[in-house]
């Protein structure tokens, strides 16, 4: 029932009653995000906590509003995946004043005052980009001539797009033969990835590598590559990030070459942290999600047990 959910706001003792977590999600803009939401919801149910879930529909304003409302409702712990990095100090201060601990998930904030939140749990986008780049450097170590790379960026101005681009660029700087010849935004969508790739293929006669900031754009680009009469995975090496099911399938099928995982399954770790934070235990300032990378063989092995 929803009419009584606001009722247990007085259970601030932590010992009595259920732990109440207010969680503000960015939105439901991708399958990845939905998996992330589901993981958090399921873990909360399993742990027996009460979860107040809010969907900010991709707007920072909405998230700030939601956090304010959580403060009003005197939840025990506030967790949220910030839409953007900056701009949280004011509301986080209010949370601090109300003595409600805050946990950041998935994306970090750039507050100078680190005491505003207890911990961060999530992936490191720069690292994902770097992993992708490092694999490529190793893969093409023997390449004699120049290697032409095209890049499919995420939504212009979004944190994952910025960071993954940065990490990748840093990594491939190791080999001057590796050169990004074209880089455009595919808005993280399949249709966008396909449309941009079509033009890349026409504009650049020799493309050796495609780096896509997420699986979906990579999957869209696959279609463009096939339509242009090339063999994905062979003629063009494809590297993506995320490792959602469709992406893993493509990897297992040999159409992708490498995926750096960005795991959405933060739920269990988050619940664990929430409990510790509420109990006043020490927690590390930064908890990274357990993530890995996949090659084609690893994907074949992992695919049967993937949850999302």
């Amino acid at each position, binding site marked *: 029932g*929803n*009419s009584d*959910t*606001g*009722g247990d*706001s007085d259970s601030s003792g932590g010992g009595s009653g259920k732990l109440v977590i*207010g969680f503000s*999600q960015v*939105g*439901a803009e991708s399958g990845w995000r*939905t998996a992330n*939401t589901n993981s958090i919801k399921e873990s909360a149910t399993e742990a027996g906590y009460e*979860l*107040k*879930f*809010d*969907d900010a*529909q*991709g*707007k*920072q*304003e*909405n998230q*700030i*509003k*939601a956090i*304010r*409302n*959580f403060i*009003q*409702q*005197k939840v025990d712990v506030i967790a949220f995946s910030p839409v*953007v*990095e*900056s*701009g*949280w*100090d*004011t509301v986080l*201060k209010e949370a601090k004043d109300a003595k409600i601990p805050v946990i950041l998930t998935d994306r970090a904030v*750039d*507050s*100078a005052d680190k005491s505003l939140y207890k911990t961060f749990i999530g992936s490191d986008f720069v690292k994902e980009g770097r992993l992708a780049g490092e694999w490529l450097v190793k893969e093409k170590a023997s390449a004699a001539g120049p290697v032409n790379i095209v890049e499919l960026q995420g*939504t*212009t*101005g*979004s*944190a994952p*797009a*910025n960071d993954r681009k940065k990490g990748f660029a840093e990594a491939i700087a190791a080999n001057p033969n590796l050169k990004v010849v074209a880089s455009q935004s595919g808005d993280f969508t399949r249709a966008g990835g396909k449309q941009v790739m079509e033009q890349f293929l026409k504009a650049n006669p020799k493309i050796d590598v495609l780096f896509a900031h997420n699986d979906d754009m990579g999957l869209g680009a696959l279609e463009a590559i096939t339509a242009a009469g090339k063999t994905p995975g062979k003629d063009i090496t494809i590297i993506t990030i995320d490792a959602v099911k469709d992406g893993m399938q493509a990897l297992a099928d040999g159409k992708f070459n490498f995926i750096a995982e960005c795991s959405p399954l933060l739920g269990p770790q988050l619940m664990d942290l929430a409990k510790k934070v509420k109990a006043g235990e020490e927690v590390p300032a930064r908890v990274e999600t357990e993530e890995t990378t996949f090659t084609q063989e690893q994907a074949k092995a992992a695919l049967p047990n993937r949850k999302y």
Partner: protein
Amino acid sequence: MTTTPLAASPGRAWWRVPPRHVPVLATAALLLVMYSIGVSQYQAFSNIQVVFNVFIDNGFLLVVAVGMTFVILTGGIDLSVGSVVAMTAMVSASLLGNGLHPALVLVIALLIGPVLGFAMGCVIHFFDIQPFIVTLAGMFFARGVCTWISTTSIPITDGFWTSAAQHRIHLGENFVSVGALIAVAVVAVAAAVLAYTRLGRNVYAVGGNQQSALLMGLPVGRTKIAVYTISGLCSAIGGILLSFYTLSGAPLIAVGMELDVIAAVVIGGTLLTGGSGYIFGTLLGVLVLSIIQTLITFDGTLNSWWTKIVIGGLLFVFILLQRLVGIRTK
């Protein structure tokens, strides 16, 4: 049958509300009903702070909606507002980051919006181009400036900005922010301008019938340019408030805000065809959107997609009731 007196003026007694105020009052009443539902359903909803938060969290939306009300009253539309808000915040953040004096930044930031608005108004008036397309170009332009400045968000650490952002004005146990007060002040000024100045009258006149207004010797062009400038100014103020609110400039902030703003204005009873509506209505419109949002957050059980469906549903119920009340009193 005896001769009925010439029912010339739709006669009415003093206690009856003029028919054209009915929609606004109906909206206000419905808003109260909605609020009561929230209070009865969710415990903490009755805190006064919830009401204050509505103003704190929607200050910039309110200010921008005020500007949009002027534009829509003339029968125009301004799609650039969301981007101009973002651009203002972005410019402020980057200038502050470069160590410019906050007062100077404030002036510059407050100038950019009106200048762009003025330019758009001139194009709309002198070249007789549809506002939709001109302001859409303005929207691309302003957003382009945002990403051009930086693709990453820029934090603001300036002392003036942070104190304006974090200063709380206490009213009893509760508090409001500086931004909320500015927003309320803008609403008051705008309402006065619309009701008590020539500009205000001309705005309604242009919206009523541009051709007639012209023939009546009213400054149609000047009025049209003025409203887009005002809208630009309001967007600039909104941008400043947003930069207070988030203490940063982000290139992708306030995307799609123009739709929220237009929705708020129209829910407030302003006709999109122009000539009829009130600032007070716009205030109510913003409150309605915000209460819907608050209700959903307080509920806290909705799925992402159910959130959207419920927002749409509540909007529908609200509009429907508003409409039915309107018809009933006709």
